[in-house]
């Protein structure tokens, strides 16, 4: 595990994965979208609105998964000071925030015709909205400090504190009665017909590989930013007059 803490090693693997992840994303969307939008059947109760399910659930899943990745990497950064763990966490946050926003938006567009309301302050919806705000706070806090390392550390602590929310989101529909329906997964398997599970899994796969692809691109950007910072710093060290002239 500590081997991956080395950015050069890490990026060598990441760059090797990138074309596969990107290619798989395109393929999964090309196969999944027509099934989700056209060939899969309408639901016996919800009719055609079930097609929103194929966007809402993958977005919700990725919103939570990406947060979990941020939390684990934040812990690794705080405990072992792995620079790469910090970069993975920071680079993941905007993507996770987009997934969470899409989960909420698609959920509202689904709730209006089925429940009769865009929004209800039940435990599942509220805890998911809180996660979205924690994402925003995490991104803002990380950039709020003059010293980037202090920003990284403050953001990592916020991410860990916010991880308490993850089990609440997951189990909210079991611990309290909610407007939101219970999970489609249980000990007995999935409560979804096979003809609807296929597009669901394809879209979940597409969202996952999309995240991996964008994460690698963002990591390249983060490493470039670090190199730029270093280059600037060494430049200043060589000629302090250059900085004054700027």
């Amino acid at each position, binding site marked *: 595990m500590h081997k991956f803490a080395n950015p050069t090693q890490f990026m060598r693997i990441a760059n090797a994965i990138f074309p596969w992840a990107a290619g798989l994303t395109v393929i999964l969307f090309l196969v999944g979208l027509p099934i989700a939008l056209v060939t899969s*059947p*309408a*639901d*016996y*109760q*919800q009719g055609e609105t*079930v097609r929103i*399910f194929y966007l809402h659930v993958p977005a919700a899943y990725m919103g939570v998964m990406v947060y979990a990745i941020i939390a684990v990497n934040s*812990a690794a950064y*705080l*405990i*072992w000071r792995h620079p790469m763990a910090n970069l993975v966490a920071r680079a993941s946050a905007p993507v996770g925030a987009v997934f969470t926003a899409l989960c909420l938006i698609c959920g509202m567009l689904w709730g209006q*015709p*089925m*429940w*009769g*309301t865009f929004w*209800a*302050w*039940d*435990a599942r919806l509220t805890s998911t909205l809180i996660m979205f705000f924690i994402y925003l706070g995490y991104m803002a806090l990380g950039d709020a400090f003059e010293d980037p390392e202090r920003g990284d550390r403050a953001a990592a602590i916020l991410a*860990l*504190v916010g*991880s*308490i929310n993850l089990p*609440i989101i997951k189990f909210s529909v079991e*611990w*309290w*009665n*909610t*407007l939101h*329906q*219970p*999970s*489609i997964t249980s000990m007995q398997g999935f*409560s*979804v*017909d096979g*003809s*609807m599970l296929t597009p669901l899994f394809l879209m979940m796969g597409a969202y996952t590989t999309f995240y991996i692809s964008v994460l690698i691109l963002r990591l390249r950007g983060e490493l470039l930013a670090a190199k730029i910072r270093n280059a600037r710093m060494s430049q200043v060290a060589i000629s302090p007059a250059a900085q004054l002239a700027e």
Partner: protein
Amino acid sequence: MAMTRKRRRLYFVMLALLGLGAGTALVLTAFQDNIVFFFSPTEIASQQLTPERRIRVGGLVEQGSVVKNGENVTFAITDMNKSLKIQYQGLLPDLFREGQGIVAEGRMGTDGVFTAHEVLAKHDENYMPREVADALKKSGQWHEPTAKNGAPTTTTEPVPTTAQ
């Protein structure tokens, strides 16, 4: 030396998370009544509710209880133990039908009838095409519902009661 510092940080993070988790669990348990989205008819019957208080009740719409009179609807919801009569004026959500789980927001009347200002439909976690649902019903493998998830109650076709 460096090793022990990392160890110490690891323990500190684990301890902090444990404390935070325990604290959150305590708070959530204390506010249990405020976090639940609705009360069941049984819970309503066991409480003395003032008519001024706006509350939400939830349960399955009882078979044959829906009476529509223009915009006015009366129906009863049940949690398989107690039932509660509800009157409502307005548009019902598309999923509203007998046997369906619903949540109504409004006030309890002194006559024991609940006056709803808003009716929301719950849907369950089962997704399937109509043919599969029909086949399940025919073969008698239709899952019995629980009041909590608001699944369909009957082995007969749910009767749509919405306007369109």
